[in-house]
């Protein structure tokens, strides 16, 4: 951490987006995490993604639980709404907030402890309910805030900093999210911003429940030779299958992408989700095969990254519950109490 604040001075050639804002305007307070923490790179990726999308910061809702990861919403989008909730209970708060105001971009930040241990039940149910939000897990496989115990996502056989092996099977939150209804599932690496920024942009603009599991090394406790969540391990073992980006305009669509088979998914707002297959045989629309593939590669010690699954015609909670178009918090007394006549006709319908 540092207590020296970041100077306000910025590079004169920094890009200005449609709102007249630069990337620097999407930053938050200075991070108090350990120097080199992967989570700070995730925050930086969120800052870049939001600035590139040109979204208004006051339309954001940042929600988190408890842990190193859950401190990070303080370090990006300094001019947004936020709620730092109880340990493992971010999904409940996010559900309520998203239902109350569907017009906000809902961004949940959680960690492997917050989502895979204390909050596993809450996590499963927010996935099932398909809340329209982007849910990011900063996954470092360790409880950094309490001095480095194994977390529930730590791989079997991976060791602690002192060489003691982990005895338990890991919970694979990515497969779990795919199984129970997430409509946009990705895994990324904090040290690969090119991939991560694109995924965050695509996930934020996806209508439905988007989930990104970001392997984000803990430099203090889990970045050593025996770790499977270290910078070195991820650089050696990550295998990207599909990269994703959000393409808003025709102009952007002509940008030269790297080689690979392209697939554009047109979104309701006319923009496109651009997928590039790095692995030719991988199909990001086949949920069962995707889950199998992940398991197979994991057995080989590899970490599959990129966009793993996307359902383009996805339904979210608002569609499932058939809610009115207007955000619920904008409904006034007249909308909510239609009067005696309406009550009478409802009662009549049950007779």
């Amino acid at each position, binding site marked *: 951490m*540092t*207590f*020296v*604040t*970041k*100077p*306000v*001075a*910025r*590079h*004169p*050639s*920094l890009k200005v987006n449609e709102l007249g804002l630069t990337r*620097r305007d999407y930053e938050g307070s200075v991070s108090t995490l*350990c*120097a*080199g*923490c*992967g989570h*700070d*790179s995730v*925050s*930086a990726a969120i800052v870049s993604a939001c600035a590139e999308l040109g979204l208004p910061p006051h339309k954001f809702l940042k929600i988190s639980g408890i842990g190193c990861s859950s401190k990070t919403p303080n370090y990006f989008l300094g001019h947004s709404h936020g709620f730092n909730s109880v340990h493992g209970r971010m999904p409940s708060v996010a559900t309520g907030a998203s239902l109350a105001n569907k017009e906000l971009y809902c961004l949940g930040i959680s960690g492997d402890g917050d989502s895979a241990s204390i909050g596993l039940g809450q996590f499963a149910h927010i996935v099932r309910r398909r809340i329209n939000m982007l849910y990011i897990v900063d996954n470092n496989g360790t409880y950094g805030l309490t001095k480095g115990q194994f977390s529930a996502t730590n791989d079997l056989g991976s060791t602690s900093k002192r060489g003691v092996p982990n005895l338990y099977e890991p919970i694979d939150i990515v497969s779990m999210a795919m199984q129970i209804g997430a409509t946009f599932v990705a895994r990324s690496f*904090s*040290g690969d*911003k090119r991939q991560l920024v694109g995924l965050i942009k695509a996930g934020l603009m996806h209508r439905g429940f988007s989930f990104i599991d970001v392997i984000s*090394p803990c*430099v203090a406790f889990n*970045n050593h030779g025996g770790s499977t969540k270290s*910078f*070195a391990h991820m*650089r050696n073992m990550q295998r990207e299958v599909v990269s994703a980006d959000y393409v808003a305009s025709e102009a952007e669509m002509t940008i030269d992408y790297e080689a690979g088979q392209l697939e554009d998914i047109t979104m309701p707002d006319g923009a496109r989700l651009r997928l590039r297959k790095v692995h030719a045989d991988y199909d990001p629309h086949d949920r069962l095969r995707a889950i199998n593939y992940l398991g197979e590669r994991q057995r080989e010690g590899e970490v599959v990254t990129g966009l793993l699954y996307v359902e383009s015609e996805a339904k979210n909670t608002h569609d499932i519950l058939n809610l009115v178009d207007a955000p619920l918090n904008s409904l006034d007394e007249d909308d909510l109490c239609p009067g005696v006549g309406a009550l009478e006709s409802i009662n009549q319908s049950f007779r």
Partner: protein
Amino acid sequence: MKPTNIHNPDYFHKVVDCQWACPAHTPVPEYIRLIAAERYTEAYMLNWDSNVFPGILGRTCDRPCEPACRRVRTEEKPVAICRLKRVAADYKGDITDYLPPVPKKKNGFRVALLGSGPASLAVARDLLPLGYEVHMFEKDPAGGGMMRTQIPAFRLPADVLEEEVDLILDMGVECHFGHEITSMKDMLDMGFDAYFVGTGAPRGRDLDIPGRAESDAHISIGIDWLSSVAFGHTTSIQGKVIVMGGGNTAMDCCRTSKRLGAESVHVVVRSGFDVMKASEWEKEEAMLEGIPIINNRPPREFVHENGQLKGIWFTCIEQVPDENGRLKSVPTGESDVFMEADHVLMAIGQENHCPWIERDLGIEFDKWDCPVLDEITFQSTNPKVFFGGDSAFGPENIIWASAHAHQAAISIHLMCQGKDLKKDRPPRGVNLISQKMGVHEWSYDSEHDPATRVLVPHSKLDKTLSNIKVEVELGFDARLGHFEAQRCLNCDVQTVFTEQLCIECDACVDICPMDCISFVDNGEEAELRTRLMAPAENHEQDLYVSEALPTTRVMVKDEDLCLHCGLCAERCPTNAWDMQKSIFHLPQLGSYAE
């Protein structure tokens, strides 16, 4: 690109823009930190060591450092480096104990210094502590050269000048003042072991247009006139005065005229306002004192009647860019302008002039009548004779004289010791010292101060215009000096990268406020510059490139806009980044530090 060799003394020196731009390479950030710490005496001595005349330069320097200041690129206005130098001079304590001792027993070599200006004085200062017997010859009755004769007292008070000149003379210079040199041959016959010519550029240019000769009684050469004012021979100027020329001498002439009772003063310049040679602040001061500067008016002829000057005809031109974008003077077609004048001061340039050096002494001169010199050793074609200051390569500023003098002094010493002037020259060097004192603790104030440049207080106009001896700029007081010192970016505290320690976590890339740092695939420089976090478009500033990292990428840092805030080092989990002070060593003789 190849990995950067940061142990090349010039690499980090170049990052310290102000020091790099300074001809004497004064360690600017180091003395600014001393001023911030209220250690004025040490700040003064650091300057004295490097540029010899901190009090004088703190008022009169042409400030090549300021346009180079990084702050010009990151914000707009440079740090007021020159005025801070003056703060050190104004508030210093007793410096006696810091001065180099001069041995009573001489080393047996006798050196003659011709002229008593900044170059000769600086050579004397460098040679005396080594035991040389130094003789100084000067035509005027007092030492200081152009600093005394050409810079008016309202810019450089006599006591400031005398303090720094006497400091050197009192080190044991044998002064021969009031001794005009008429023959170099006679000098050589005196049998000195070495000669240093520091006689400046003493001849003011003249203008050959109709009416010049007939109006001679009412036309003065600027530098000669300023000199006669400085020695009290001229105490007033009457009627309407026109100053011709656009350099600092012209500004000094017009402001002096105003103080000596001229009815009106106009500056008329052949060229446009922006390309005038005068320093920005000199022009501002003149205009603040109500002196109009009229541009794009080349003179056509002097008008006179019965030996009495009436005025000058000027033609009208404008500056138009030609096909290469260069400005060209083109007549506007307007009819010529007549301006009345009772006295004209010509300040249209100076040149070297050495009629007293006989041309059969082995001292060669080029077609511009400048001595043929070695640019490193300042030795002329006569191995015993050295040149420095304006007499070497033509008119420059005082700071150049100091720079030349240090090199000439080294050469004189090597020659007297029978060594080779080039092969045995001491090399430049650099030391890198970590500034880390603990967790989040740096030995320098790393936090970036976004404050704007502090304005300097001035004396009241009615007071300064009525008395030529009242100094116009009052200088910063200790408080203002402290504020201004905080604006320095500490460019000499370098970001040093150790690739073996880097785990490529991106923390430095994320935190850098100026997007200076990138981890990318290596490539050719021109192409590499385009694909960094922010494009590196200032090609005058270097890229710092590491060896290949485990991912085969390299770290590339664009030095251009780095604030030296140290956040990369604060955020680095493995100390791959460290903030290290680069101390550039420019060899000097007799410096107090050695």
